[in-house]
């Protein structure tokens, strides 16, 4: 009897926590919402200015035809794949500790994919011509492959977010009642598609969730490889590399896990989810991040060694500017701050605390963005004929659009979690039902979460 009362009280607390952003987002929600929205709006104005005046206002020229936007495209889409893959892999490996963080990882995957894909249009001087990719595609073009791959992956990500959400939408339908407003109630009712939790419904859902978790892994790998091939199938020094596919995939995973750490930490703090998301969650994510970081380090070393050792004229010039030339401060800054330091912070026992692990995540995300710039800029500015290197100008237009895109990610997540539970209630209940598995409140995680 007492156990049942405790269980029911825990369940009520879990529901309160999961619906906190929906029902009581807090008094800082709207100022933050307006602030982030203003940044996005300013970025939209800057894009309008770029449309009117031309791509040169973003620092582009004939001698620097790729720049900050391409780095943003790869970086934002990369973190999206990382978020989805983390959730899918942990789901397939039945890692029960994932339950409280999967919703945030999947939502992050969707929002960052939308933001990243928008750069495919932003970086075009004549964006209306993207229509030609659809009406008269050239099947041999990697750009066409990119459009197809990103579209396919966007649909898969939507399904991957939606399916595990169905039982939770049913909870929202039953719990919130008339206070939710007509539009929101309709959304919950339609979204829940009549979920009652019957065994037949459970079987259907489990089959589909398992299938999409399997499918999204090769999809994510393929899609980011295609994005890499858009670079490596170009005859430019620095890009024409056979390892770019896996190199990009590992980079995406590394930065994606890092951003999951940052996002989970932010929402955990904002909505007081410490009871459900503890140090162990961060430590587990950080271990995965450290392994991926080490693999990325290996790829970087391999790439530098092979191109630097053979020293064909064009490739050698790229290696030279990276290791000792004008890009050297950024490159070594990335190596130390973006790779080595996050690995150390993630693995050393003394720094196994939430704030250190979040710092490692932030460093990895920023470092990987810098790395995408280092992939893009030297090759895009290297001369193919003649000896004159181009240079990219970091103009206010490019910077404002980048800041606006960055702000769009937390803004999008705040909007999503105004409508859906931030914790995956269904999965947490399932995990809780398994003896010995438990969630943060019942195990060591609770004690660690206090730190």
């Amino acid at each position, binding site marked *: 009897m007492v156990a049942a009362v405790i269980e*029911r*009280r825990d*369940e*009520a*607390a879990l*529901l*309160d926590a999961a619906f*906190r952003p929906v029902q*009581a*987002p*807090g*008094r*800082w*929600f709207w100022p933050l919402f307006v602030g982030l929205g203003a940044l996005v709006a300013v970025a939209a104005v800057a894009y309008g200015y770029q449309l009117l005046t031309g791509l*040169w206002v973003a620092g*582009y020229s*004939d*001698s620097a035809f790729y720049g900050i936007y391409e780095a943003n495209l790869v970086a934002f889409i990369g973190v999206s794949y990382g978020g989805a893959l983390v959730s899918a892999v942990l789901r397939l490996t039945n890692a029960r500790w994932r339950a409280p963080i999967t919703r945030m990882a999947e939502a992050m995957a969707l929002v960052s994919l939308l933001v990243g894909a928008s750069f495919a249009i932003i970086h075009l001087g004549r964006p209306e011509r993207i229509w030609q990719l659809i009406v008269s595609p050239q*099947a041999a073009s990697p750009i066409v492959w990119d459009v197809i791959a990103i579209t*396919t992956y966007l649909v898969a990500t939507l*399904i991957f977010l939606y*399916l595990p959400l*169905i*039982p*939770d939408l*049913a*909870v929202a339908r*039953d719990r919130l009642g008339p206070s939710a407003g007509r539009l929101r109630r309709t959304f919950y009712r339609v979204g829940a*598609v*009549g*979920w*009652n*939790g*019957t*065994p*037949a*419904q*459970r079987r*259907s*859902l489990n*089959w*589909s*969730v398992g299938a*999409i978790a399997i*499918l999204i892994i090769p*999809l994510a790998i393929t899609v980011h490889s295609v994005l890499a091939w858009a670079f490596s199938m170009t*005859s430019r020094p620095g890009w024409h590399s056979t390892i770019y596919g896996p190199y990009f995939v590992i980079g995406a995973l590394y930065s994606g896990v890092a951003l999951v750490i940052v996002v989970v930490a932010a929402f955990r*703090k*904002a*909505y*007081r989810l410490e009871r459900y998301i503890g140090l162990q969650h961060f430590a587990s994510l950080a271990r995965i991040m450290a392994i991926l970081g080490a693999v990325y380090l290996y790829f970087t070393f391999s790439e530098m060694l092979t191109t630097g050792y053979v020293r064909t004229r064009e490739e050698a010039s790229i290696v030279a500017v990276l290791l000792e030339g004008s890009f050297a401060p950024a490159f070594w800054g990335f190596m130390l701050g973006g790779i080595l330091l996050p690995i150390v912070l993630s693995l050393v026992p003394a720094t196994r605390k939430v704030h250190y692990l979040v710092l490692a995540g932030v460093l990895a995300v920023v470092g990987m963005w810098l790395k995408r710039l280092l992939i893009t800029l030297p090759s895009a500015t290297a001369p*193919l*004929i*003649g*000896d004159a290197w181009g240079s990219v100008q970091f103009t206010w237009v490019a910077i404002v659009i980048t800041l606006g895109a960055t702000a769009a990610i937390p803004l999008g997540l705040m909007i999503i979690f105004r409508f859906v539970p931030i914790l995956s*209630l*269904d999965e947490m*209940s399932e995990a*809780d*039902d398994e003896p010995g598995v438990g969630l943060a409140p019942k195990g060591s995680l609770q004690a660690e979460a206090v730190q």
Partner: protein
Amino acid sequence: MIARNRNAAWVLRALAIVTVFVASLALATPSLAADPPARLQADAQQREDGSWMLRATVTRGGAVKSQETVLFLARVEFFGERWVPLGTAVTDAAGVASRLYSPTANGVQELIARFAASDGTFDSDPFEITVSGALPALSEEAPVLPIVRAWAFPVGAAILFLVWLMLAVIFLRAVIGIARPTSPQTSGCAPTRKGPVESSPQQPSSME
């Protein structure tokens, strides 16, 4: 009288010395004299492989200039009308600088050669080349792989179709399987429980 003659002799000697000095200085250091402006004559000849050999001859005062660096430029119109450097070449003993140029766009192109010296920058008269059958940048004729070429597109399209089909099946199976009318039966997990849930005291978020 004798003294006056002696003074005149000294003056003449001094004038002679100054004259000889200035004359020898002028002869020994020709660079101090004003150089005539450099002249560049540039043209281009198409080669059998479709590329162009750009040539520029540098002369100054009728004499050819060797070991001088000449820059070739092309006029472009995108991102504003201007001269874009194509590359440099050094003049040989005959004063001729040669550089291979592989245009990547068809049509008429306007080029110049430029020579930068300590006393100024000298451009040749613009000259035009008419390009047809431009070479794609850094590519060579690749061998055609007929089997790969024939199968790549249909195989890729089939894989893409299968992926979309799987996405549709996954989505529809879940939605139809859940929406199909069945007798309500809770599975026992928290989210499926109907009715009001005993609410714990609302924890304020840190945003409050």
